């Protein structure tokens, strides 16, 4: 018990001693970085729709172009530099997801196509995929229950 309290005291002391990023500044930068990425996406979407593609197909093209751009920027080591400034603003959009898949692919290529890229490409994105699918399953199940019980039409 006494040891636990000592450890807690040290942890609190270290927390006070350790510098952290400025939260408002980081949020501002994230807002700008995320906003720019989404604006680019919106521009692509508008162009696709102007070219006469229907809404779904335009959305597909937009995602694809953003993903390819992010992968290329990761390969040229530009995306990590943007993320250093933009933080969560570069992490949350689809470009961040693409980066989290491309980066391990590049790093683990040296360990082979199967054991390297194959096994490790989703080391970072894996949890997002797993729990993303799981959450959508839970929500879908809830939706079905509500429908069957007649609560929603």
């Amino acid at each position, binding site marked *: 018990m006494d*040891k*636990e309290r*000592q*450890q807690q005291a*040290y*942890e609190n*002391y*270290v927390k006070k*001693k*350790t*510098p*952290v*990023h400025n939260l408002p500044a*980081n949020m501002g930068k994230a807002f700008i970085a995320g906003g720019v990425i989404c604006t680019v996406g919106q521009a692509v979407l508008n162009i696709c729709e102007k070219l006469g593609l229907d809404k779904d197909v335009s959305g597909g093209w937009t995602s694809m172009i953003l993903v390819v751009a992010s992968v290329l920027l*990761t*390969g040229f*080591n530009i*995306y*990590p530099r*943007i*993320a*250093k400034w933009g*933080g969560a603003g*570069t*992490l949350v959009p689809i470009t*961040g997801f693409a*980066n*989290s898949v*491309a*980066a*391990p692919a*590049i*790093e*683990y290529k*040296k360990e082979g196509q199967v054991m390297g890229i194959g096994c490790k490409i989703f080391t*970072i994105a894996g949890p997002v995929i797993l729990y993303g699918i799981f959450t959508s399953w839970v929500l879908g199940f809830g939706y079905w229950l509500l429908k069957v019980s007649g609560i929603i039409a």
Partner: protein
Amino acid sequence: MTKGLQSIAFKESPYLVSSASVAGKKEGEGPLGKMFDMVEKEDLFGENTWEEAESTMQKEACLLAMGKAHVEAKDVRYLFGGDLLRQGVATSMGVSELNIPLFGLFGACSTSGEALALASMSVAAGYGEYMLAVTSSHFGSAEKEFRFPLGYANQRPLSAQWTVTGSGAFLVGTKRSHVRITGVTVGKIVDYGLKDSQNMGACMAPAACDTIIRNLEDFGRKAEDYNRIITGDLGYVGQSILFDLMRGKGYDIKKNHMDCGMTIFDQMTQDTHAGGSGCGCAATTLSAYILPKVERGEWKRVLFVPTGALMSTVSYNEGASVPGIAHGIVLEHC
């Protein structure tokens, strides 16, 4: 012979005959850039992978250290080496060509101290004329092992440290030189229960404090008896914590403390946050910056205390704390 609780004072102190440092590009651009024996402009060192690059650094450092003393590999009795990679492969792959009987070590970033302690003990005990101690770390291989692939986009916390790409090798022996290892203090594992692997300075500071005080008490010295007390890689956060811990125990080392992690990079221009870290941090700084000063007699006696944060990705993910360890090596001009 043994001294105090954890230390050894050598009756016939072994000499630090020669040493060598090999460093990467970023280190070469830092404050110590011109002092390293070899700086490679390309962090792959002409190899295909980070791990091979790290092994090459170790081999080059060993060859340079032996070359400076005109000693051949066959004259070296034992080699004490270690690194940060799983199962110590950087050392195994790096030094295999040298054909020197090997002890593979792990002490996280304190490995240079562990290797020097064992090498000097072996020489002092008369088990051989020359021993080689070597350690290394590489930014690429360490990031991959402990954190994320290099291309992954994230923000490093301000308490994070930058793993040094570098290797230092030290030839310890009976041949006269201007530096002697007069004593060692082997450190204990000190665990204050901290679990933040991104704040290693805070994890290691208690161990550094413990070893430094142990050394002072075992040898009956005051902090002022050392021209410098040099920690391995506490960084800016760890140093301020060390000062507080030492003050709490009645010691003031502010005036003569130096930290390799704070010396090897320029925090303002090199974006390294809390400072350098890794086995290579303490080892290259010792070889390139500290030893020349002791050799010239600018510093008569220093206490070199490399510090290590003991953890693996598994222990960390399973919620274990990150204990620290530190070893003290007393270096004297002669």
